[in-house]
């Protein structure tokens, strides 16, 4: 959810807070004093054009980028000081699948289950395969899967360790309608189960669908933020179009 006054109204537990978060790549400013918050069980959708800083924001929260200025508090821990165990509580879905193309479906999931030190990795992997409707593809190398199936498997990978916070970076990119619907359904189930989400997308309709709070990043700066309950899709969409065309 957003920063400042809007967040103080929420009674829920804040699980993520960024304060004056700034990241430079050389002379390029990817994030400029970005302050955002996310409450447990809610979804914050961050919109913005390509290069607006959305992916950098998610990568910092996912601990993939460690050099930045400002503060990030995740699950009440200062991210720079947090140990590696905090990553067990985070799931990450990106347009990259993070899957090994030469390994079969089952072995990919067993690998990630082992990496997260889950009990009974083969059993957990098989349950995930069933959950994603990929039973017939267990022994198929990932290279031979269709884009939609790969995305399903990638979702299974992201959910296999049952994270509390799911970070989604342009998750609908390249998906056909049925795969996008499956992703929608899985996100809805995750939220119903009390999970928190932060999604970065430029797709206004899909992004809005799950959002409790929205923010728009432009050139690394938060230029718009609101609770979904305080606005309408049409009003937001008109504002978003204006920002994109500016």
């Amino acid at each position, binding site marked *: 959810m957003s920063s400042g006054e809007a967040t103080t109204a929420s009674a829920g537990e804040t699980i993520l807070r960024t304060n004056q978060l700034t990241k430079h790549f050389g002379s390029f400013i990817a994030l400029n004093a970005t302050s955002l918050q996310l409450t447990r069980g809610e979804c914050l959708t961050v919109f913005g054009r390509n290069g607006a800083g959305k992916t950098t924001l998610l990568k910092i929260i996912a601990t993939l980028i460690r050099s930045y200025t400002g503060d990030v508090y995740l699950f009440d821990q200062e991210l720079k000081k947090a140990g*590696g165990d*905090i990553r067990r509580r985070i799931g*990450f879905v990106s347009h*990259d699948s*993070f899957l*090994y193309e030469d*390994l079969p479906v089952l*072995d990919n999931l067993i690998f990630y289950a082992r990496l997260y030190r889950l009990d009974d990795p083969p059993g957990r992997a098989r349950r995930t395969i069933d959950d994603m409707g990929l039973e017939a593809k267990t022994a198929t190398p990932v290279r031979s899967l269709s884009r939609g199936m790969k995305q399903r498997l990638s979702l299974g990978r992201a959910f296999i360790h049952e994270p509390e916070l799911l970070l989604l970076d342009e998750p609908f990119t390249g998906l056909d309608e049925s795969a996008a619907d499956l992703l929608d359904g899985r996100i809805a189930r995750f939220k119903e189960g009390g999970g928190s989400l932060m999604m970065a997308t430029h797709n206004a309709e899909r992004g809005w669908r799950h959002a409790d709070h929205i923010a728009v990043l432009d050139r690394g700066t938060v230029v718009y933020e609101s609770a979904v309950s305080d606005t309408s899709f049409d009003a937001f969409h008109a504002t978003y179009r204006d920002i994109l065309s500016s």
Partner: protein
Amino acid sequence: MRHTIATILWKDLKIELRTKEAFSASFVFSVLVLVIFNFTMDLTSDEALKLGAGFLWVAFAFAGILSLNRSFALEKAENCLHGLLLAPVDRGGIFLGKFIANTLVMLVTEIIILPLFAIFFNVDIGERLWLLLVILVLGTVGFSSVGTLFAAMAVHTRMREVLLPVLLLPITVPVLIAAVETTAYALGAQEGVSFWFKLLVTYDVIFVTASFLAFEYVIQE
């Protein structure tokens, strides 16, 4: 950390057993190098003993670079490296898993190449075979430790295939020279190489430790 090492090792070896890409590329390259040296130089048996160790390590070094490049290329595809870095595991464990996998793949190639080398150059490798195998392990460990670190550095760049040898070869010159000198001793071409043995072991200890410690900083964006 042992669990992380075993998991990475399991994954890398499983991929290699399925594809055999690193092995086949480095094996073919090594054989080619030996064949070319064998046919372009008409060596006497004494000369073969003296120069053979050098030819052997030229083949191993360049074949090793092919295999190291492949090791991180598969992490770059579909951004699997991020998948590893997102896991709640020690990054040192990731390094050790990759390093051991790379070392094993290189050693398998080298052990298969060794009898071919003996045939091509008419060299007796049986007399001090165990010593030769120990030298192979020591030389490969040193080369592969720095190679794994630099392959991880190069993977973020556009010209990683070119960058890896440019970075790796200058810093592995000491271990390659030591490996050549000690291999020449094992083949019976040279005496008094205790300095080179010490250098091999010292290089391994220093560079395995340094690469392990530096990996976390190198792998970070």
